[in-house]
């Protein structure tokens, strides 16, 4: 049975308006936030309960049909890119906040709940959900779990994997499993640690238990403008070197500032080569002391203008430019590629110089936005697909930047995930043995390879392969159907 046949099987259970087979409607789901890759799914199912999800997955498992889960469809690595022969399981209707448990500092949510929605729900009780990707007004908790999303505040507060204590998971076999809960340190293997960040390849989360963080007593944000990214980088080093761990340090270069200004009129200081947003939070007395230090370091390193947010409104305005940066780039360039590399923070000035050199040589503009505190870069490679050759050059620049990150001992992706977009770079960062070992995890959860197949790993591993010594050739290799690594 193929995916289309599943529609008839699932219709009685899920209802007519949960099944989409119309071609034009299917096409609206053919990509997520990464528009370079588009694949029309054979079938789209909008699940409303765990039972629905389990039923769909079981049906897929029985039919040998691959499935891909999707939240809000805002991912930047093609994690929710559908399979042409597969089912796209859309979780956006499972969006209830099931419980805000202040006493235990936990919330239990359905995966379609929007990140910011959870924070807003917890705020009246003096709590919030700390991982705050820039897309938090629309990205879903389930998507955050799949990608191990970070955000501007993850330097101090960590990523999704540091905030998930429990999951209800529908395994690729269609079984519903409860893992963890509200307490910490569940005995056994840290399955949560494997699942968070697994990009939908180990099953589908249908309930998520997360840690809530106490809203800090004081938050102080400053915006400082520097003539050049070098000086801004030096200020960052000084801040970290003094033992201050800010809640966030974000940097934008001149081109990124230009885009943000055009989009949201954030009013960043004119003529800045780099803008630094530093946010400190915590107990009021600590923040006051740290803030003075930070201000001092900015001045000492050549900041020509420093603005201190007087209230929440101004603070939101400082952040508006940064948070809209990706989408804003659409105003100064018809097309762009956003990269997500990570480098050791101390290498920042040098890497930025190298990126500038690569950009100049290729004649392709690169705007830089990044989490200066943890070295996670977001170079925005700008191009016009209508100009012949520019698309290709942009890809090359993009790849060169990835190589640069690996060269400096960093990572090919800090928070967007590998998905379909960066699978080709995985062998540059990891050896065959490394990738083979990771896929052991995959084989444990999804031996039939139907859960978001084709993502993360460029070459899938056949499960049922026994690692270690082989006595004679493997029958599949013999038959010419597979290769042994």
């Amino acid at each position: 049975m193929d995916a289309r046949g599943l529609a008839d099987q699932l219709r009685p259970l899920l209802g007519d308006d949960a099944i989409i087979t119309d071609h034009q409607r299917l096409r609206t789901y053919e990509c997520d936030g990464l528009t370079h890759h588009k694949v029309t799914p054979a079938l789209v199912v909008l699940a409303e309960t765990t039972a629905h999800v389990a039923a769909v997955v079981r049906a897929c498992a029985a039919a040998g049909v691959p499935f891909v889960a999707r939240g809000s469809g805002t991912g930047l690595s093609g994690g929710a890119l559908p399979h042409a022969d597969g089912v796209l399981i859309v979780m956006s209707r499972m969006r209830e906040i099931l419980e805000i448990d202040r006493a235990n500092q936990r919330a239990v949510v359905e995966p379609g709940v929007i990140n910011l929605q959870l924070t807003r729900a917890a705020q009246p009780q003096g709590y919030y959900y700390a991982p705050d990707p820039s897309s938090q007004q629309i990205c879903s908790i389930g998507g955050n779990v799949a990608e191990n999303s970070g955000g501007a505040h993850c330097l101090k507060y960590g990523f999704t994997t540091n905030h998930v204590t429990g999951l209800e998971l529908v395994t690729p076999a269609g079984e519903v499993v409860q893992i963890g809960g509200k307490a910490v340190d569940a005995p056994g293997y840290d399955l949560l640690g494997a699942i968070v960040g697994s990009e939908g390849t180990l099953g589908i989360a249908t309930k998520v238990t997360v840690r809530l963080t106490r809203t800090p007593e004081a938050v102080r944000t400053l915006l400082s403008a520097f003539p050049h990214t070098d000086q801004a980088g030096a200020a960052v080093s000084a801040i970290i070197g003094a033992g201050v761990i800010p809640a966030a340090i974000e940097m934008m270069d001149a081109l990124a500032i230009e885009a943000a200004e055009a989009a949201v009129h954030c009013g960043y200081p004119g003529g800045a080569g780099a803008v630094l947003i530093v946010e400190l939070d915590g107990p009021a007395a600590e923040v006051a002391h740290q803030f003075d230090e930070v201000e001092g370091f900015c001045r000492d390193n050549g900041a020509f203008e420093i603005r201190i947010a007087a209230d929440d409104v101004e603070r939101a305005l400082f952040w508006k430019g940064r948070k809209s940066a990706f989408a804003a780039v659409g105003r100064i360039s018809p097309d762009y590629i956003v990269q997500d590399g990570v480098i050791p923070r101390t290498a920042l000035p040098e890497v930025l110089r190298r990126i500038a050199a690569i950009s100049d040589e290729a004649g392709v503009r690169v705007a830089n936005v990044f989490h200066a505190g943890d070295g996670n870069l977001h170079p925005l490679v700008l191009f016009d697909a209508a100009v012949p050759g520019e698309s290709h050059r942009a890809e090359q620049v993009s790849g060169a930047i990835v190589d640069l990150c690996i060269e400096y001992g960093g990572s090919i992706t800090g928070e967007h995930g590998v998905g379909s977009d960066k699978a080709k770079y995985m062998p540059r960062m990891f050896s065959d043995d490394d990738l083979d070992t990771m896929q052991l995890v995959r084989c444990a959860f999804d031996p039939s390879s139907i859960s978001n197949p084709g993502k993360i790993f460029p070459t899938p591993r056949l499960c049922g392969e026994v690692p270690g010594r082989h006595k004679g050739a493997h029958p599949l290799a013999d038959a010419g159907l597979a290769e042994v690594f």
Partner: protein
Amino acid sequence: MGDVIMEELGAATKGHAVGATEADAVDSMPTHWVAQPDSTEQTAAVMRVAANHDLAVVVRGSGTKLTWGARPHRVDLVLDTTRMNAVVEHAAGDLIVVVGAGQRLDDLQAALSGPGQWLGVDPARRGTIGGLVATAATGPTRHLHGPVRDLLIGVTFVRADGVVARSGGKVVKNVAGYDVGKLLTGSFGTLGVITQAAFRLHPLPQARRWVSVPITHPDGIPTLVQQVVHSQLVPTAVELDRPATGGATLCLLLEGFPPGVESRTAEALDLMGTGATAGDDAPGWWGAEPVADGEVLLKLTHEIAGLAHLLTALDDVCAATGLPAHVRGSVGVGAVTVGLAGVADAQALARWVTSLRERASSFGGTVVVLETPGDFKADLDVWGPVGGLPLMRAVKRQFDPENRLAPGRFVGGI
């Protein structure tokens, strides 16, 4: 055959393999050989020998937690990591360190302290880094800095088949591929041999103060803990000490910059009420296990707000069995240790553990037996029920299909 193995192990470690003595027994399980590789490559060679000869392997650092977990049902080779004790790289500017698994935690902290940094873990048992990760060791500072799994950013390990693999890296932000490091954390050596680990570090605080208060009324403990947990003090640690004989103490550790710490100390004294005192030194019991020799050590977890139910359940079970329990640990997070005195035999312990586990849903946590005197563990389910066990078994089967890494030591008989 034994000679062949001895020879091969010697070749793999360039002469650092010996026959085992009684002292090398793992939790009273006798073993045959001890190998001491000095690098990941040598470790891989050792593991290849083990694979070729179907040897069951248990990894040992300082051996401080070798008796934790269930007794492995077979041990042929002890793989000693203590020669892999180099600090491979300390990038102070990036606040990361890469270190050999055989490095002792105390030595590492000493090495990091020069540039004013530290690894944010302070468990009671100070073994090696490898053991820290493999047992997911926990201490008071996890309240603020998180458990070991949140500090580990990269790992190098050797599989049962001798293949070397890496996961993560040297940078704090990294979502490339699966986080195998987290799977290895707390896996008690049943998935692979950790040879190197990379961690994120924290700056050493400029000021520290401990604020303690004795709590006379039993109901006072959960109430005060809730107040502390929801306050704006942002303590580094929140520790309870409740001896079996009565009289409990709640102690907070406040760290940061001097003016901030002073201000928060005053707030804490105010919050904690009459009898609260502040000092520059930790209380004597701080960070130590609440057991004496011959006593049983357990680890309990609970939902933060489940503390009241945990203490009630403990008191009930102790009263029913006549075994007094000393509770000490991180009640702000929900992970504590318990020392049980006067346990006469395995049956008494089993009864105690079973009774408490029956009440586990009331406090939303687990009861794990870490260490017992003598043979008390023999027929005891030390780990208790575990969710997702079939998935865990599937993971084990993939990583160690021949079941040679500490077989039987882990949950569900893994």
